[in-house]
């Protein structure tokens, strides 16, 4: 059957969406159409399904939210299996999908679906295929090391995949290329190396006694014993509390970017963006590119959070940026229909009487990122809470080794910054490992490259006042090798690599 609602984007100024062949599956008793390559959640959203599940206690409707398999909002019963994260489940011919209401029971008859166990012993395991991990992988591989890269998404690239804007920096560091184009360049580069094994749709889920790192892919179970690990696990979005903040139509900026820039589906018609950091400013611009009307950007601080040029881009399209404003509540029947914002005083308390109503069906939260350092913390690395870096990060040396031997941190998980610093950190970690795992001139050259990169990163790149806050944060968690060894013996980690 055809649906009256079609949210797919057929024309976009920047991105060409390549849709796969048409596929049919069953949603609540009716046959629906999707394109191969779409996730079940995206396919349903594209035809106007806003509610994916109802919450367990309060029976509240939930719609697309994180879109990367991390929340529970898209839980559906697929082929009788409840708690299925449909936002990361690719559509397949003949799937039977039902919305989940609260708790459900799994089938008691085993289905024909076996998990294959795979053992891997690479020199270096890279957790996370974002800019940092991909840069590290290509350098390690070009120096002859065996590399395994694991990424949760169906395609590597991390946040690069969602970006339509051209990146800053210099040409050597992909400056001037659009985010998704940089991802493509890396993917091409990685394909040239036979000593890189790339595992997509695979989650590294833990470090175990004896230095075993375990990862789960689609019916594949990887048991990995690496000599070194670069955990470049990126960042996750922060959320905020306001009445009805769980209503379908309230999404993380990242979730909306996935829907519109990776899958080519409009996340809504009229949007309000909460937060004016770079993410908020960029997503507002991307919404306009996707044909969504952006009513306003609200920012609780007195100043715009992101870079001026990003602000200027949306501002000159007539999108107001309401500083000293916050979201008061949203309302709607099964989906956001209205958002109310309010001005705040110097102490961020709402000033009554200053409320403004917006008729929107989409409220995007872009209120900050926090490093995703679960892997490092679970591995036993000594961590520190650093507000300037967005949250909990591992203590590290300047070449980015943590208190767990041969466990490195790089990119946003080392403290939220931006893509170019992530690339540079991936490079530093890679050269540090090469200098340890090789010998002679190769090791010597790696050390030189590492020093060169460190110098550029700390003395040139991070000398920008725009990066000074993050720089301060990073300085506060960077220790000397002696200090690292001291911490290592004081807080012995349960595992070590190498």
């Amino acid at each position, binding site marked *: 059957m055809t649906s009256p609602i079609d949210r797919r984007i057929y024309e976009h100024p920047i991105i060409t969406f390549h849709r796969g062949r048409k596929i049919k599956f069953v949603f609540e008793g009716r046959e629906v159409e999707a394109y191969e390559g779409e996730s079940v959640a995206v396919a349903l959203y594209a035809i106007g399904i806003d509610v994916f599940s109802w*919450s*367990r*206690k*309060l029976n*509240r409707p*939930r719609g697309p*939210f*994180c879109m990367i*398999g*991390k*929340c*529970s*909002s898209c*839980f559906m019963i697929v082929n009788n299996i409840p*708690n299925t994260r449909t936002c990361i489940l690719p559509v397949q011919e003949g799937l039977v999908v039902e919305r989940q209401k609260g708790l459900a029971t799994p089938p008691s008859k085993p289905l024909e*679906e*076996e*998990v294959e*166990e795979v*053992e891997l012993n690479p020199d270096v395991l890279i957790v996370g295929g974002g800019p940092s991990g991909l840069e590290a992988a290509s350098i390690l591989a070009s120096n002859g090391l065996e590399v395994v890269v694991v990424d*949760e998404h169906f395609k590597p690239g991390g946040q690069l995949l969602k970006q339509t804007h051209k990146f800053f920096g210099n040409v050597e560091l992909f400056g001037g290329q659009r985010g998704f184009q940089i991802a493509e360049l890396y993917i091409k580069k990685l394909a040239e190396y036979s000593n890189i094994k790339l595992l997509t749709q695979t*989650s*590294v*889920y*833990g*470090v*175990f006694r004896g230095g075993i790192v*375990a990862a*789960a892919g689609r019916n594949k*179970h990887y*048991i990995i014993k690496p000599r070194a690990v670069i955990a470049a696990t990126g960042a*996750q979005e*922060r*959320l*905020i*509390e*306001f*009445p*009805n*903040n*769980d209503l379908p139509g309230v999404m993380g900026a990242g979730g909306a970017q996935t829907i519109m820039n990776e899958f080519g589906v409009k996340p809504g018609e009229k949007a309000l963006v909460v937060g004016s950091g770079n993410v908020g400013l960029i997503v507002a611009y991307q919404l306009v590119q996707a044909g969504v009307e952006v009513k306003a950007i609200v920012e609780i601080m007195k100043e715009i959070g992101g870079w001026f040029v990003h602000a200027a881009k949306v501002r000159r399209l007539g999108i107001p940026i309401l500083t000293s404003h916050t979201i008061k*509540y949203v*309302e709607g029947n099964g989906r956001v229909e209205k958002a109310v914002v309010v001005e705040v005083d110097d102490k961020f308390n709402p000033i009554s009487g200053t409320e403004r109503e917006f008729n929107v069906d989409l409220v995007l939260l872009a209120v900050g990122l*926090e490093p995703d350092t*679960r*892997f490092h*913390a*679970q591995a036993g690395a000594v*961590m*520190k*809470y650093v*507000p300037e870096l967005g*949250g*909990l990060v591992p203590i590290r040396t300047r070449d980015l080794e943590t208190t767990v031997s041969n466990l490195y941190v790089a990119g946003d998980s080392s403290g939220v910054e931006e893509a170019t610093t992530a690339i540079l950190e991936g490079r530093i970690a890679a050269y540090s490992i090469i200098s340890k795992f090789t010998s002679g001139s190769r090791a010597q050259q790696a050390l030189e490259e590492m020093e060169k990169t460190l110098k550029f990163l700390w003395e040139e790149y991070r000398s920008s006042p725009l990066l000074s806050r993050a720089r301060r944060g990073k300085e506060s968690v960077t220790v000397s090798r002696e200090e690292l060894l001291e911490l290592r013996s004081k807080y012995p980690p349960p595992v070590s690599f190498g």
Partner: protein
Amino acid sequence: MDREKVTIICRCNDVTLEDILKAIESGIDDFELLRKKLKIGFGPCQGRGCLVIAARLFARKTGRNLGEIISNYTFRPPLVPIPVKYFTRGGEK
């Protein structure tokens, strides 16, 4: 609209702002206890959405240090939920 009742802190377990404020009012002065009592971070998202919001609220209400609260949380595998079927064969080594 009862604002605190419809402000959701933990989506997985439907923990509301009201639940948290009431628990703090009842005398729970330890974040780990609050978390365990209300099952914040016990859902499928493993605390990705709720932990920091709840910690921030708790810190604000009790005057505790946010960094300390967050630093006390322990991370355990699996870092993402893994179906039992991955462990029903093999694993002998």
